[in-house]
């Protein structure tokens, strides 16, 4: 199992976002919802970083034409279009199945950088990508 927010985990998270969702999960929501996400992803050419505040670890995903092309690890907030960060306790809950959208709505994740409206124009790309990441097995620090 990869260490949480390591190079190996970042690479697996990138693949998970690109291959999301599987058929079983897809069927739990209307096709219109996934169409919306596909369209929103396709027009996003920029970068989205997620971070664990108390570990000072960030992974920046670069999106190009609907696909995540790179996942880069850094130990300070990167210069990305959007930086969404939460503390380790929040990530731990999300990795255990806590609803990613709820973590956003309750501001357990905060948008440390980026325009709020641009972020919400594609909100479900980001919440579903958090769900995708949460399915990547990871070794979390004690």
């Amino acid at each position, binding site marked *: 199992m990869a260490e949480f927010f390591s190079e190996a985990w970042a690479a697996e998270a990138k693949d998970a976002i690109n291959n999301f969702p599987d058929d079983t999960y897809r069927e739990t*929501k209307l096709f*219109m919802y996934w169409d919306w996400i596909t369209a929103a992803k396709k027009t996003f050419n920029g970068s989205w970083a997620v971070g664990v505040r108390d570990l000072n670890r960030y992974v920046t995903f670069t999106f190009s034409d609907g696909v995540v092309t790179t996942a880069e690890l850094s130990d300070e907030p990167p210069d990305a279009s959007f930086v969404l960060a939460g503390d380790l306790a929040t990530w731990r809950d999300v990795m255990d199945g806590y609803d990613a959208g709820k973590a*956003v709505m309750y*501001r357990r994740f905060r948008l440390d950088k980026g325009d*709020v409206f641009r972020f*919400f124009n594609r909100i479900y790309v980001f919440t579903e990508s958090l769900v995708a990441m949460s399915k990547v097995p990871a070794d979390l620090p004690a």
Partner: protein
Amino acid sequence: MAKTVEDFQIVEDTDLEGIGKVHIDEVIEYVHTFKKLPAPLDLYARYLKQRWNVYDLDFTQDAVDWHEKMTEDERQAFIDISSGFHHGERQVEVDLVPFMMAGTEDEKIFVSSQIEDEARHTVFFDRFYKEVVGVPGETIMDVLDHSYQWLTETFVGPFGLLAYLADDLRQNPDDPHRRVKYSTLYHLWIEGVLALVVMKVTLGFGRDRGFLPAYYTGFTATCRDEARHVQFGMKFLYDSLKRDPSHQKDVLQVLQTIFNMGGAVSKVANTEPLGFDILQLRELMVGQLYRKLGIIGVELPKEMSQQLQSLEPVIAGG
């Protein structure tokens, strides 16, 4: 003939018991009936007169109706819709705080009363879920956590946007553009459009069937509270736009994002068992939106009015 302020004297003056006898459509009309938009302190005085005690409601008959008279489909539809309010009220309660950090002192006095209203609305749903639906929980959050399962994922769009705009406002509470954007989402869209329309669904059902009397009473009183909130917001937006017409852009930016998010639908809205279909609701929402835009004097560009015709609104309110 258009109704006047005098036609709504009963809605204006009645107590909690009396409001339970008023038709919801009357209360929705009451929101839009004023000689001129009231000043914040007038609305504060009205708050003191209209404030109701959420613990005066007795849900005994509601629990009987719920378990013995309503069908499983009706219960599920009711729960799906109420959960959007249960969480909506909580969100508008906590996210209103940064708006009170700036504005005039008169506005702050009014906003303090609105925070109390929204807290009371949250407690109203907490009691309904615990005492009627039978949801377990010791704390307000226990019950919210339980009812979260009935929300759709697209609830996070408008209400997450509100949470993040509140956070943004907290860092720059005096910025007039941020305040107008926030108020457009909060007062105009969530309260003035979503809430007023969706309230009709469960209240219309309760009234037509003679079910859930305490719910009907408390939620109709909630709707009367919304009249003060919406009128406050319309005055704030109207005055802001008059002072600086460039705020028009702020209003449209918010609506554009709402319309964009409104294209994402993850579940079919479950309103039909209660007698409403989504087309009816969309039409009501479009009507409410144009009414509010008319009051503040903002026109939608053509592309946006077209987009509005295919909007799938979130079934929620606050």
